[in-house]
């Protein structure tokens, strides 16, 4: 269970599993990830379905699915308060919850929201009001920086760092192609900082909790 707070946006992520068996239409040779999105009030509709799908595919890409084949891990996201950048907040929460539950992961995912206002300035992590006012916004998810003994590990063939690859990108509203790339650059820098924060807070947690240490 993990409680993630980003300004006034609050999300609780809970992980249950791995439980035996997968659902129909899922590959039993791999672990199955199931995401249940609970909105703050009311029933879940189309936006929640979209969040579930994006979150599920994002988490699938960071989990080591071959470790527990034919199992299902459920992630329940309860929105406590929405004040903008809800999906990035939920992704960070879910990721931390997976670590807390001890689900094997390749790396962490770091999510960030960048938005482009009318003047061409880029804001990070907007509030709900800002989100409605701006021209367009992007949710970006990057892998966290790998601390590896072997420096080549974090490099791809083209010389691009692995943490520069986008796991997930969701945009709303119009923007120029160049603006997208400047959002990408800024988001990447912010994600690196956030990645260090996540790493440190998870280290602290592991240190305090003797059952999780080691």
């Amino acid at each position: 269970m993990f409680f993630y707070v980003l300004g006034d946006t609050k999300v609780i992520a809970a992980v249950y599993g791995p439980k035996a068996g997968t659902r129909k239409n899922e590959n039993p040779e791999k672990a199955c990830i199931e995401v249940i999105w609970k909105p703050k009030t009311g029933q879940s509709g189309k936006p929640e379905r979209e969040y579930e799908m994006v979150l599920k595919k994002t988490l699938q890409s960071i989990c080591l699915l071959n470790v527990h084949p034919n199992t299902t891990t459920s992630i329940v996201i309860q929105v406590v308060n929405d004040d903008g950048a809800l999906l990035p907040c939920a992704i960070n929460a879910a990721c931390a919850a997976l670590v807390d539950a001890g689900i094997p992961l390749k790396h962490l995912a770091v999510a960030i929201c960048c938005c482009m206002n009318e003047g061409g300035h880029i804001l990070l992590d907007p509030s709900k009001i800002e989100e409605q006012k701006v021209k367009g916004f992007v949710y970006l998810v990057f892998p966290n920086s790998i601390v590896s003994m072997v420096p080549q590990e974090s490099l791809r063939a083209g010389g691009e760092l692995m943490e520069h690859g986008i796991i997930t990108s969701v945009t709303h509203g119009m923007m120029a192609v160049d603006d997208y790339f400047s959002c990408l650059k800024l988001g990447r820098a912010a994600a690196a900082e956030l990645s260090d924060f996540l790493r440190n807070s998870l280290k602290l947690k592991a240190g305090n909790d003797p059952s999780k240490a080691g």
Partner: protein
Amino acid sequence: MGGSVNGGATDLSSEMEVDAFRRLFPLRFHERHLVESVRPDARPLGKARETSLALGAVGSADGSALAKIGCTTMLAAIKMEVMTPTTEAPDEGCVAIDFHMPAICSPIVRPGRPAEAAPVVSKQLSDTILSSGMIDLKQLSLVSGKAAWMAYLDIYCLDADGALFDAALLAAAAAFSHLQIPVVSLNDDGRIVVVSKQNEVEKLKNKPVNEEKRKLKLKSIPFALTCILHKNYILADPTAEEESIMETLITIVLDSSCQLVSLNKPGGPALAYESVVQDCIALSRQRVRELQTILNEAISDMEVD
């Protein structure tokens, strides 16, 4: 040592029938093609399937279109209804978009159970269409604060063979360009009524409200291209088989002036590096031009008839 799975598959491929190999080792089957820069359906990697468009496919709708990209078939139809606009936007109409996936469209969809993909595509469609500014909602106003049009756009997937969103968006844009807004007039009670062909008498009595505004002016129509990222390859416009085997999809929506409307990559095992995203955008630019000509041809064919 021939114990590894890969080694085994290579050995088998020479003695096995192609269809059996395709079913047993789908990923290896596709990768073998990719090395030769060709796909199982004989397309080069960056080429989309043949696309066709027919306007006015549904007689009872106010605007409709049938779009086909390869085998993926989408039927879009618009029904217009008069409604009272909200107080926040008294001189704007409204567009309601819904995407349906009946059981006939794919073997994965079971009857009686809603397809998982349908609400997601539906949400993405309405986000894209509304944020692209293709439709100026002010054009849907009839009498400010009193009456405005509500456009119900329903898109039915008749055959789901990959790149659903691309085909659905094309069908939606085509249906809007085919849309013929019904003539309405104010009756004696001050109510808006649709002028049908039968009651010509009424037409003479009450002047129509919107005689000139029968067509929507669409600005900057958005077009989408879905690509698969697999290793170093980029495959444009995937089929359902390719989508199920190589899971990283990226959908780029550009409008006619090449502004980015949406760039959607929901997870997937492959990471999208900046150079890859640039390549995908270049492919989409090309595709936008292709789709624009297809749409323009369909519209001019319609006008000739």
